[in-house]
């Protein structure tokens, strides 16, 4: 016990050991914070799913990030609630989505969208303000390929 205390005091007095001690403390804190960040990123993330993946297996209540294209002719609105179907980027499987709120300007038939959804009955209900429509804007190399 006495030896431990003496070592502790020496450690605090010796500048080199003091620096090493501080470095270890700082590194431990940084590692702990980084671990918390990494852990929460996995637990708080929403998994990206295509319409066919959601149609095959979606747990009610869990939030998924749905990506796909708005099926042409499927959009209908009642007040501020909009219903439409989202189809696989390449494929025919689609799922029904209900979204309440303002739609982004580029939203329309055939446009690629990303929206956080939760399964409620047979429909996927969009989370508020989560819908983004890819801007077909600037670099249109996609069209060339």
């Amino acid at each position, binding site marked *: 016990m006495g030896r431990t205390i003496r070592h502790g005091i020496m450690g605090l007095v010796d500048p080199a050991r003091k620096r090493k001690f501080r470095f270890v403390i700082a590194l431990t804190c940084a590692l702990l914070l980084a671990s918390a960040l990494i852990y929460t990123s996995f637990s708080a*993330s929403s998994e990206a799913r295509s319409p066919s993946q959601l149609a095959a297996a979606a747990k009610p209540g869990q939030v998924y990030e749905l990506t796909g294209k708005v099926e042409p002719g499927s959009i209908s609105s009642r007040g*501020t609630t909009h219903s439409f179907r989202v189809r696989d980027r390449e494929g025919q499987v689609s799922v029904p989505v209900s979204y309440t709120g*303002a739609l982004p300007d580029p939203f329309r038939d055939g446009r690629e969208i990303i929206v956080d959804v939760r399964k409620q009955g047979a429909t996927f209900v969009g989370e508020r303000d989560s819908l983004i*429509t890819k801007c077909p804007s*600037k*670099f*249109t190399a996609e*069209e060339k390929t």
Partner: protein
Amino acid sequence: MLSLGSGCLWLALGVALYGIGASLYGAGRGGRAWVDSGRRAVYATAGVVLVAFGVLEAAFLRSDFALSVVAGHSSTTTPTFYRATAVWSSQEGSLLLWVTLLGLWSSLMLFLTRRRAREVAPYAAAVLLGFAAFFLSLLVFLENPFDRAQTVVAEGAGLNPLLRHPSMMIHPPMLYSGYTLFAVPFAFAVGALITRRLDAEWIRLTRPFTLAAWLFLGIGVLLGARWSYTELGWGGYWAWDPVENASLMPWLIGTAFLHSVMIQEKRGMLKLWNVSLVLATGVLAILGTFLVRSGILNSIHAFGASTLGVPFLILICGLIAGSVWLVLSRASELRSENRLDSLLSREAVFLLNNLVLVGLCFVIFWGTFFPLISEAVTGSEASVGPPWFNRYIVPLSLVLVLLSGLGPVIAWRRATAANLRRNVARPAAVGVATAVVLVVAGVTGSVGALLMFSLTAFVIATVGQELWRGVRARRAMSSDSLPRALVSLVGRNRRRYGGYTVHVGVAVLFAGVAASSAFQHARDVELQVGQSAKVGGYDVTYLRPTGNLEAASNGRLEKIDLGAVMRIKRDGELVGDLRTKRSFFPSADPTLGPVSRFFEGEATSEVGLRAGLRRDVWSAISPNVRDLRKQVAEGDRVFEGAKALPAEQRELALAEALSGLTRSYAANPPPATFRLIVSPLVSWIWIGALIVFAGGLIALWPPLRRAPRPVAARYAARVARELNRA
């Protein structure tokens, strides 16, 4: 002209490659003449690229649809202002802008240092030319802006309506200036590492460029935030979108670098840390450019999958590997000359500030790249949203603002309790008093926001106290008036007081962000004309619809506007009217009818905004055009039968029909849906940003040549008198 543009790109690539060789040979065995030749190659590359950019700009302004890039991004109905900006709306044009700006900044830096840093500059020139050669190779081999169209069309696709915003003129050039300016300290750091000239000389030489990079990138980011705030569906002023994040990361690391270099200059410490930061900033700037163009992450700014991902990835890997090797191989020469004396010192506060800034960057990096990380680790792609970012960004921002108040007042080396008491007690009291007043006033909804307001008051008080003490000391010496003493004080210590001003601006900006995030009210409502909705204490009434058909300067139809006038009242008293509208631009799809193509193309919302110092009232309309479908179909049918008419007559008839449609909408408006937002203190975000940039300009402004100073003369006279007395 097209051949001239293409030829310029080839020539610039050749000159850049020659310049790399000449600089490296000159730095080795070749001698001064080769080094000078390499430097001149930088000027020549910049000049030739500037000509190419001019040729492309002229092609856009003349609507030369022989160029596929012009046909794809401009049209005769695009207003001249937007035709000029459409150059960088294309992949090819934006790459050309990037390399043009890089050439200009590189030339300026190498011209200014032509008689200095003789060992480091040739390597820096080679690195800068290396970047230029990379971008020129992309332009020559993959994305040539001077490629001819296979068929020359009569009318181009036009600039995407979403990009028709005044910010389009300045937001991208500012961002690119920031990115390219950060290449300058990166290149000089590489030069310093290669030549092992690791004193603070390269830092002093590149400081104005680092500061300018920080300033321009910051202006670019803030202009982007402001633009996003006035668009529907872009998530407000900040949405943690990958492309937004990509621009913020180099800015954060650049901020850390601007602080930590002060410790190297003052105490010879943190050399390894500083070169690492500046190399990281350069790599992050390229990473930002890569993110925008590769399409590897889902973004609101998704610019389409492109062929540029692989070359950029190779460049980034090369930059990282090279940087790590250089730093590790020079680690022994990067040892600090001094040690940290105390944890209660300005050095320690700066170090903590650096850790917080790097922490912020790490959080943003992790969140941005999480979809790729998650796919690599778990096999399935997942992403994190704004709540995850806010969980870490909010506490780190609070610490950052606290440190920006402490930094200016804590002593170098070792602060004593008396020093802290003298400098911190009053500002801390102001901070606590602010919190108490706000709690008493009922601002209790968010602890984070309350802490941020309190810390903002603390920062303003510390800077105010420093200014007051400085002014008082000057007046004691010179008997100047108060304003004159203040101007003189700031003028003689521009870097210091510019920095303090930046701190005040950052604190004010964060207070605006905290208030508008914590106390925002938003509603989506459907309203008939005359109906009202309540939001954040305001009554918003749909007063009347508006409808308008707009023609371009050449007389061709450009867009249809459908909108609304909203009346805003608070406690029964009129606040004002807001005008919001949605503009419908015609689709270029030839299969659509002449009327329906106006409702099947792109549409953009113009937000109605009443900005105030206390709060903003924001509104956007989504007009219901479903009820017009019958009339639209009828119009298409009529015009199908009018194909035989001459084009001019058809255009006139179409204008008449569309005018009738807009009049019909305004006369019998269907219910429209509105997004209504009331946000407190948003204006303070922009005011804070202006203060930050004013501070940046103060720090950046070159020092005046000093005239003989009356204070110094008076002091000398006093010393002489004292000596005589002795």
